[in-house]
């Protein structure tokens, strides 16, 4: 993995938020390289700049200064439309609040990224079905978000993020709204995606246990990288799940 080509390259990235009263320096010269196939956890105190960094990585926001190269493309200089295309083709997003479209079925939610790629309806459906069964939700296709549990919603969100087969998956506190067991289920899923399909994963978390599942942990403080540690022995979420006390009402999911 050390020799894999970089997918994310931050060179002296700064982000200032200019508000009426003050200028918040959310990122203060971040240098960071993440290679293809890595599973990176970003940790740090609240306000240390984790979400800001994820937004820039995800091309949702632009850095104030510095250069950001994503998969060989200098995306900082690109137009809004070009960045929308980059998001659609290279990145899958998973959010803390799931961010599924309300009153829209799981299947339709998962199809959505393909709509913006201009994929024909039949092909869309086929790929969305495949993606949903890959996250173990083949039986919940026509449920709307309010008919699904938190864990199930997050699986739909992951299926949506994966349906375009992006090389990079960004997850900002994906387990923040989930209990321990469901958190490990989601982590197990992410670990397998990383292991089996080589998808690069960047995950922001507050929880040490969750961060321990990643192969590399980047700790932020006051807008800078404070520590960048390779975790030689990441926790296997599947095994952690098995060791948890059994809770029957949750049922066993794949």
């Amino acid at each position, binding site marked *: 993995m050390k020799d894999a080509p970089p997918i994310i390259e931050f060179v002296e990235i700064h982000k200032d938020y200019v508000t009426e009263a003050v200028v918040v320096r959310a990122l203060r010269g971040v240098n960071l390289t993440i290679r293809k196939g890595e599973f990176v956890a970003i940790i740090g105190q609240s306000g240390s700049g984790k*979400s800001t960094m994820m*937004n820039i990585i*995800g091309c*949702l*926001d632009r850095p104030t200064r510095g250069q950001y190269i994503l998969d060989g493309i200098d995306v900082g200089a690109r137009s*809004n*439309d070009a960045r*929308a*295309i980059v*998001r*659609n*083709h290279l990145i899958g*997003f998973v*959010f*803390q*609040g799931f*961010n*599924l*479209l*309300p*009153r829209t079925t799981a299947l339709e939610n998962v199809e*959505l*990224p393909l*709509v*913006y*790629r*201009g*994929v*024909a*309806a039949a092909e869309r459906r086929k790929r969305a079905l495949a993606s949903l069964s890959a996250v173990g939700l083949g039986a919940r296709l026509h449920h709307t978000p309010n008919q699904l549990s938190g864990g199930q919603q997050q699986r739909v969100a992951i299926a*949506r993020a994966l349906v*375009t087969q992006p090389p990079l998956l960004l997850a*900002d*506190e994906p387990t*923040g709204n989930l209990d321990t067991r469901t958190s490990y289920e989601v982590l197990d899923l992410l670990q397998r995606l990383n292991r089996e399909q080589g998808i690069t994963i960047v995950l922001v978390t507050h929880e040490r246990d969750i961060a321990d599942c990643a192969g590399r942990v980047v700790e932020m403080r006051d807008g800078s990288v404070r520590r960048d540690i390779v975790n030689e022995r990441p926790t296997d979420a599947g095994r952690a799940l098995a060791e948890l006390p059994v809770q029957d009402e949750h049922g066993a999911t794949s």
Partner: protein
Amino acid sequence: MIGLARVFSAIAIAMRAVLRNKLRAALTILGITIGIAAVVTMTALGDGARAKINGQITNLGSNALIVFPQSARASGARTTGGSKLSESDCQALERESTSIKAAVPFLRASAQVVYEGQNAKAEVIGSRIGYLKVRNWELQRGEPWTTSAENVSEKVAVIGAGTAKDLFGTADPVGRWIRIGRHPYRVLGVLEEKGPSPFGRSQDDVVLMPITTMRSHVRFTRPGETDAIMMSATSPETTDRAKKQAEEILRQRHRIREGDEDDFLIRSQAEFQQMQDNIYGVLSLLLVGIAAVSLVVGGIGVMNIMLVSVTERTREIGIRMAIGAREMDILVQFLVESLVLATLGGLVGTTIGYAAIVGLGAALDLPMKLAPQALAVALGTSTAIGLVFGFFPARRAARMDPVQALGRE
């Protein structure tokens, strides 16, 4: 730049958003619905009225001319009292003009006409027998009076179809005696039915009698005096010449000095038609104006709801942007939504307008129909409203910052 498949899915998304909030959608399109219904109905009403009037005007004869007295406000001594037209003016006009075929006097009064306990209100017209020719009126039965009847003020009359129906029902009035005031008059004939006048008054509730008879029994005036003079030119082409000649003859007879104003006014049937056309033109312009205002109000309603909708769905916009929607995708999505709303309003409005046309046409006896142009204009207008008033909210949605739209967690 945007594929057809994406446009279709934008329409599908828009339809779903509209259907999800049926009550709100219904209230939103109400303004446009009313506006379009008004436009459709008004245009049909205006056209129908005009078509009907034109039909009646050709009925009156396109070579008809009317002379009214007019009080001259010239520098001269004559100020009040006005002018009087006389029967000798009529004779002079007939005698001295080459382009006037006939000129007859005209006295009118409103009266109650009675036949065996049946009552009817009618307009009593006193004239010469030539009046029928000048007005282009035909008798459906009976016959007109004779010149000798005029000379001896014989109590005879020709009645309109409406009066005949009111007083006699289906019976034949010819030879019977009707009464106006204290005097009985023998009915000689019944006129053809003519329908209401351009100004809405029935032209069938009339009693026509020799002007001499009228003067001695119904309306007492000085001998020879007349309210107006009805003339007919020798042909439709000579009406202008007839008018000019009549002007000269009357000025001379009334001794009006060079530079002074006429003490009469001559109007041709064509001028009347022009006036009516103008009146209806202004009227329909007014109605269309009202309709346009309601359409603008409707458009603002759509814009308002679209702005609310964009605000409510900020998060949805953020999600769509995060997974790859471009500005154009979002713009099209919301534009299509307002377009769907406005067009729906247009369709419902057209349907209501059509129903109104059918109902009004039957009630007012007007030849009203839904013109294809009106339909096209109505639907085109509502689509345009959707585009124009939907653009601002849609652009606001498209220009959102994805991070802010997603909200900070």
